[in-house]
């Protein structure tokens, strides 16, 4: 997704266009839900969290930045909401256990079901490996390698120095690859 693609839509949402808001939700829900899922680790919690993020965005729609500043701002808002949500959830109940097979349980009728099941299995493996990383490493990998944000923006969103992001990113990638290999070996042996 490019910030320039979103600019007209963002402008219309800022002006209070209800139809533009609906398009905005439909266009970004997959991405924000994925981001929320990487924090919540649970589909239902991720749905609640993604909805909270959208409500927050809607409330602040008159203050949305435009142009290149919009996407980093969006991720910062989503990240802050997610951190608040996790804090509240940790008070309310213990952190959800990782449900590795959750992503593979989606109903999948029709042709190509086997290929999609394999892909879904692979995704659940990646999610499980991501959840094994430390919080900061996971955030860096998610923002940098999953959502493709530049290193400077990742550092700005997380509020850490640029050098920290770079060094942590390389270590976290290797750790993630090792975890993925270990998990896939464990599954094939099981």
């Amino acid at each position, binding site marked *: 997704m490019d910030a320039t693609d979103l600019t007209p839509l963002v402008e219309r949402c800022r002006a209070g266009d209800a139809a533009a*808001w609906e398009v905005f939700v439909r266009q970004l829900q997959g991405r924000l839900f994925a981001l929320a*899922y990487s924090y919540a680790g649970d589909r239902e919690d991720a*749905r609640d969290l993604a909805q909270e993020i959208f409500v927050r965005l809607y409330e602040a729609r008159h203050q949305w930045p435009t142009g290149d500043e919009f996407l980093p701002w969006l991720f910062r808002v989503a990240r802050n909401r997610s951190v608040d949500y996790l804090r509240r959830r940790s008070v309310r109940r213990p952190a959800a256990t990782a449900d590795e097979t959750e992503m593979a349980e989606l109903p999948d009728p029709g042709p190509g079901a086997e290929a999609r099941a394999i892909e879904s299995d692979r*995704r659940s493996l990646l999610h499980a490996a991501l959840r094994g990383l430390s919080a900061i490493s996971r955030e860096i990998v998610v923002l940098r390698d999953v959502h493709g944000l530049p290193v400077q923006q990742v550092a700005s969103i997380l509020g850490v120095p640029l050098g920290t992001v770079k060094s942590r990113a390389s270590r976290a990638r*290797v750790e993630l690859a090792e975890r993925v290999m270990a998990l896939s070996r464990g599954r094939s042996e099981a």
Partner: protein
Amino acid sequence: MSASICDQVRAAALDPGTVSADWARRPEIAAHLRCCPSCQDWLDAFAAGERVWEAVLAAAFTERVVARTSGLAAVLGELPSLAEMDPGPGFTERVLLATSMKPAPQGWRARVADAWLALVRRPRFAWEAAYVATVCLVLVFGNPVGAIEWSAVNIGTVARERLAPPVQEFRADLESWRARLSAASAPPPSTSAARQVAAASPAVRIWEAALDWLRLTSSSVIDAIARAWDALAAWLGGPEGEPAPRSTEPPAGPARSHQ
């Protein structure tokens, strides 16, 4: 063969310095191994264990190398597929419903009202408010029950002691203001001054009239404040010359004995 020689052979096998020196071919070790089946078995098991360990280390090393090369590339190639996920049916409608029922706050008053309502509507608000009130009561009065009664009795005394000096000062200030105002409004305008005012421009006349009105109004307001302040001072001060009671202690119980 004595046990001490067996121990020496096994210790030599465990010593990394001797293993690489082809120690098993040394004549005395070889002779011992030929005649001691227990040491021979031990050595075979030890060698098998070494091989297993080397294999484990080699596999881990290979895995680490793969993880840092082709495995890493594969994982990095797959990560962008996680950027989008289907939130499931009904999610869009849920979000639109939640946002259509939430108009953006219009100003700070609406935001404060929203925040207050959100605070009040929390299920434990009454308990929390009662708790805070109790804590405040205890912090201010110590023992709430006895101290409230004591405070009600003695608050006049304390107020008299604290407020008497400022009351006197303020009264003196009021007197001086009154004197100044009466001095300012006392001299009637002379005929030359009246002529000047009449000859002046309308703006100057309006300005003069406004000043006169302000003088009169402020004088009456200050008089009212002075009367109220005098009444307060009379109530607080009591009969002049009477010293205020000094005791600010809680009501005494039975008289204390020195013994």
